């Protein structure tokens, strides 16, 4: 089975995020980047499928940061066979809309049977990449998947709903699957191995055609009111209980 995995880097959320001077984006130069955690799961599921059914895994990403090589080397150390990056003069905040267009062009020639990607990312302001890719490629899509089992000509997947309820689907290939969690925790890539691969591995480079425009724009970016120190509730346990109940209701966690 020819597997492809679409990955992207997202800002490291343990850092403080700062708003840019013009107030419509982040201060991108001050950011450090990590691989989208759901893409890590997608990669693991792809490697598990390869281990079960044979074949190869190609990892593809758009190099918006100039630092994608590190993520690709890690992917190779975890069991991917090929690594590709789409290069060009891209904005750091190139959205899912633009990334999906570039990725679709890069993925089409691979003649993949199955494309896995993270179900979402922390910066998907304009929606998830997976369903966009599926629509562009004309393939079916199922997301929020926690288990992929390869079968001849198709994959059997478990999709998760709220409360842990699962639905099983059979999806004809080629298809795109949005992975929520791999069925085993992502393996660790020892730095020794990554460093060794970084010395020898070939990363295939594809020039991205143009800079895709976005059909929506951010006019203001801001931080929610600072947390930092808790707002204290005074009063008797009954009153505090009432406040907690109100909060849970507002969060949609208490069904009236």
């Amino acid at each position, binding site marked *: 089975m020819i597997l492809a995995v679409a990955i992207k880097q997202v800002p490291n*959320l343990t850092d403080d*995020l700062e708003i840019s001077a013009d107030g419509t984006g*982040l201060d991108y130069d001050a950011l450090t980047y990590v691989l989208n955690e759901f893409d890590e799961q997608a990669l693991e599921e792809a490697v598990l499928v390869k281990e079960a059914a044979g074949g190869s895994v190609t990892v593809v990403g758009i190099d918006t940061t100039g630092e994608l090589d590190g993520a690709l080397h890690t992917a190779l150390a975890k069991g991917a066979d090929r690594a590709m990056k789409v290069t060009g003069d891209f904005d750091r905040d190139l959205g899912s*809309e633009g990334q999906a267009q570039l990725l679709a062009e890069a993925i089409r020639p691979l003649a993949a049977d199955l494309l896995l990607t993270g179900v979402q990312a922390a*910066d*998907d*302001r*304009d*929606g*998830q990449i997976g*369903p*966009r890719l599926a*629509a562009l490629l004309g*393939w*079916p*899509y*199922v997301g*929020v998947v926690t288990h992929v089992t390869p079968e001849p000509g198709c994959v059997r997947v*478990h*999709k*998760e709903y*709220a*409360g*842990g*309820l*699962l*639905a*099983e*689907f*059979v*999806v*004809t290939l080629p*298809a795109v699957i*949005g992975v929520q969690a791999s069925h085993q925790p992502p393996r660790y890539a020892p730095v020794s191995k990554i460093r060794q691969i970084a010395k020898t591995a070939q990363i295939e480079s594809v020039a991205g055609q143009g800079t895709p425009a*976005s*059909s*929506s724009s*951010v*006019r203001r*970016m*801001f931080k*929610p009111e600072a*947390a*930092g120190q*808790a707002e204290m509730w005074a*009063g*008797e*346990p*009954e009153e*505090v*209980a*009432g406040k*907690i*109940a109100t*909060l849970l209701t507002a*969060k*949609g*966690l*208490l*069904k009236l």
Partner: protein
Amino acid sequence: MSNDILILAEHLNGKLADITNEMAGQARQLAGALGGQAVAVLLGSGAQALAESIGSDRVLYIDDPALAEFNPEAYARVLAAVVAQRQPRVVMLANSSVGMDLAAGLAVTTGLPLIAYVNALSAEDGRIVATSQIYGGKILAEAVPAGEACLVTCLAGAFRPEAGRAAAAVERIASPAPLDGLKVQFVRLIEPEAGDVDITQQALLVSIGRGIGGAENIELAQELAEALGTVVSASRPVTDAGWLPKTRQVGKSGLTVKPKVYLAFGISGAPEHLEGMRGAELIVAVNTDPKAPIFDVAHYGATCDILDLLPALTERVKSDT
């Protein structure tokens, strides 16, 4: 183009998801401002009663045996056809397991802009403005679509459901798109295994620390968790003492959790514990010591005795639901 707001009604196992009426309420407000109607679209089979329980202005109920269960491919076909026919200003979907499968694909097939993770939606001088909660809730982004119309996926709990309670006129139609030759086949629903508790998968956690005092009080927390439909997690001393299994431990040497709400009861907030729960969207801490470091990371706090609070909250939850 119309000024209607289309809502994709969401239902599972014969129950309407709460978010549907949350969106319906917001859609009516927005439609009112734009001079259109809030139209819910419900896809299903034999689901007339569900359609009638939606609080939008109108409900379009598309009945087809192929729509008996959620199928992303079938839903995508039907929705694309409905959007093409009705030309709404805004299509609202839930940012849920269902909505996330559809919205971005629909954006490609309809050519409409999509704004995701939306927790606020309004019209300013006839233009749609949507606020996305991104970067794990650390940043809000106010965005405008390039054209007049757009798609949005909405976060659960962002809008008030009360406004969406009035029943609407239901128009029942056949599927506007062919539903044969689907490449995605629904097989079955699988209920979560009982007893197999995974605290990392919960949207809400009742978490207790050494402040619980002893094994005999664990029940107070269990009762609350049960009433809330979730489970109890804990700091290390509680699992160390064997009051709860090790699989419930949050922290450096336990599990890392990121629920929507983390209720920290009688937990001091040692760095090793914080490491495992700092990523929660909202943290509420109750601890008799007002100087406990947990209050540095919590959003809300109270200093009452958890042995009083736990039963009071359980009582409250039971009477509310």
